[in-house]
């Protein structure tokens, strides 16, 4: 039972990171129908930026409390990632708004490759250990163990989800975003500037990715130029699982995927008598995805839209 609880906690932590990344995918997709392949790389840039800032602050201002360093590095990562994603959209996606559908997908792949390469040049291709800044003593919780970092991850996810929901539902920008997603041309007629809204969407997605990147780095303790790939892929899966374009779906899909992976990793071996080990947990996520999409082709919370020309 303790093992199950432990796996659930780990799954929630992993899932909340997936959820934050998936939101970035799903918002971009909802508005311009683009799978933003470079999204995982924004996460990587966020994590590596905060790594650099932490290094600088630790050497120039020794004695600063860990959480302040983490907060400052997170804020700077926000600025860097926001600017980065804004620029990417402007240079690589905006000129292709009216191009055939697969063209921006290829530039997105190109941008992803470019960011990885640039990160390799700037930060060198080796694995770097990310310092532990929050107290590392584990908290006992009904027989399971949870670290302060994990508590911070769960809390920060909840707060940022609340802010995002408020932003989308109760602000002018949120209304403009929803209107643009519904129909960009009509939204433009109503006085919404689609370009501004799209830029804002990319910036918000980048902020969430940067937050997830810092979380990822603090949870696993390493950063490197390739770290964005796997969480990006999983988060994309999560976004589709929940119904792409659907914010609640992205969160649900992310958390579900995290739980499936973590519980699967814990139980796959014992349940199958050692035939299938935890290395198959990746397959589990994709298998669930295929089954869900077979039954509900537009994802768990996706709208059942009638086919139309």
């Amino acid at each position, binding site marked *: 039972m303790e093992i199950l609880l432990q796996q659930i906690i780990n799954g929630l932590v992993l899932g909340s990171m997936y959820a934050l990344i998936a939101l970035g995918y799903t918002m971009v997709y*909802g*508005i*311009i*129908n683009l*799978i933003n392949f470079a999204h995982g790389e924004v996460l990587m840039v966020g994590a590596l930026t905060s790594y650099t800032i932490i290094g600088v602050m630790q050497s120039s201002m020794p004695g600063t409390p860990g959480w302040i360093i983490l907060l400052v590095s997170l804020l700077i990562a926000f600025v860097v990632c926001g600017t980065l994603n804004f620029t990417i959209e402007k240079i*690589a996606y905006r*000129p*292709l*708004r*009216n*191009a*055939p559908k*697969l*063209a921006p*997908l*290829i*530039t997105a*792949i*190109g941008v992803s*490759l*470019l960011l990885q*390469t*640039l990160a390799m*040049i700037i930060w060198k*291709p080796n694995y770097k250990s990310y310092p532990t800044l929050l107290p590392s003593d584990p908290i006992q919780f009904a027989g399971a163990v949870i670290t302060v970092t994990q508590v911070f991850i769960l809390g920060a996810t909840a707060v940022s989800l609340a802010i995002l929901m408020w932003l989308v539902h109760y602000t002018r920008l949120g209304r403009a*975003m*929803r209107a*643009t*997603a*519904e*129909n*960009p*041309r009509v939204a*433009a007629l109503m006085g919404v500037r689609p*370009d501004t809204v*799209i830029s804002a969407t990319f910036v918000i997605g980048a902020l969430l990715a940067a937050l997830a990147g810092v979380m990822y780095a603090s949870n696993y303790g390493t950063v490197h130029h390739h770290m964005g790939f796997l969480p990006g*892929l999983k988060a994309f*899966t999560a976004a*589709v699982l929940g119904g*792409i*374009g659907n*914010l*609640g779906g992205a969160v649900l899909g992310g958390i579900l995927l995290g739980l499936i992976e973590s519980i699967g990793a814990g139980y796959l071996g014992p349940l199958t008598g050692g*035939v299938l*080990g935890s*290395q*198959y947990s*990746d*397959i589990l996520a*994709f298998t669930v*995805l*295929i089954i869900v*999409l*077979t039954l509900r*082709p*537009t994802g768990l919370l996706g*709208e059942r*839209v009638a086919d*139309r*020309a």
Partner: protein
Amino acid sequence: MMKSNKLIQFIFIAAGLLILPLLLQQGGNAWVRILDMALLYVLLALGLNIVVGYAGLLDLGFVAFFAVGAYLAALLGSPHLAQAFPFIAEAFPEGLHLPIWIVIPLAAAIAGLFGILLGAPTLRLRGDYLAIVTLGFGEIIRVFLNNLDRPVNITNGPKGISQIDSITFFGFDLGVDHQFFGIAVNSVSMYYYLFLALVIVSVVICHRLETSRIGRAWMAVREDEIAAKAMGINTRNLKLLAFGMGATFGGVAGAMFASFQGFVSPESFSLMESVMIVAMVVLGGIGHLPGVILGALLLAALPEVLRYVAGPLQQMTDGRLDAAILRQLLIALAMISIMLLRPRGLWPTHEHGKALNKPDGPVTGNTSNSINP
């Protein structure tokens, strides 16, 4: 007059293609090897073009079929299975060394079967949902290849399978060097001719498909599925057929790859490979055979050619930058700038995407997507 000009052109091109490896092998087998791999990529791109270009189904896991073909050839043409299973060793004391007349049709058939297997549950999915499912399928195959060395050793895990037989026609082994009329033809050049022949056959098949009833039906499905259905096209069977045909190309290319390399490992079948094949098709000109071939040759040969450009560049930066990193940087920049300058590909067809290029407002998007709370 026109006709004879074309004939002369054709003869020149054919002669050029035939002599090319013989010239290149003077400069070292590495050059011919690059050419061989480029031809294999052309085969893969032609296969994917059926799925993505003709039928308009975005497949991000195409490398899975390549892997299926390669591993099938590896298992049937290497001592691995006999080593792993005593009963096979008893039946075939020499090891399974099936002739290519069995291996290639089997690779084609099984890869095609996998294609239909993947296609069946995804029929109802549209656009990008399909992309992620195919991507997941590719990853599933790769994870299995990586881990099926326990509890029974089938794929030999991350170590891969080695000592795969080279291709042999009626006792004529492509794996060793030969002499024809006093001209030395290396093994890699022999493979070049084989792959070239395969590419030509595939181009003919694809071209015939394109103009056939099936091809036209695929394009109808691509442009507007509802309208196609209304015209009496069986969209389900046609989509499955596209997946199956595309996968068959992948399977044959895989079997060729395994026999050519003599070694396969899961590393060769990563998601990045799938993505690169999609990039080849789109970069060249989706749905247009010359474009697809150009795209495949370009993206397959570019990294190798850049090897020679990256060296001097590396010197300019005082060796601070690794040549491999510079190469990747240039490829990424090339992908982005080609797409920005020519959004429809380097050599696009006149037909493709006509219905998609409506004179729209500043942004396109359809009403079926929205952010829903």
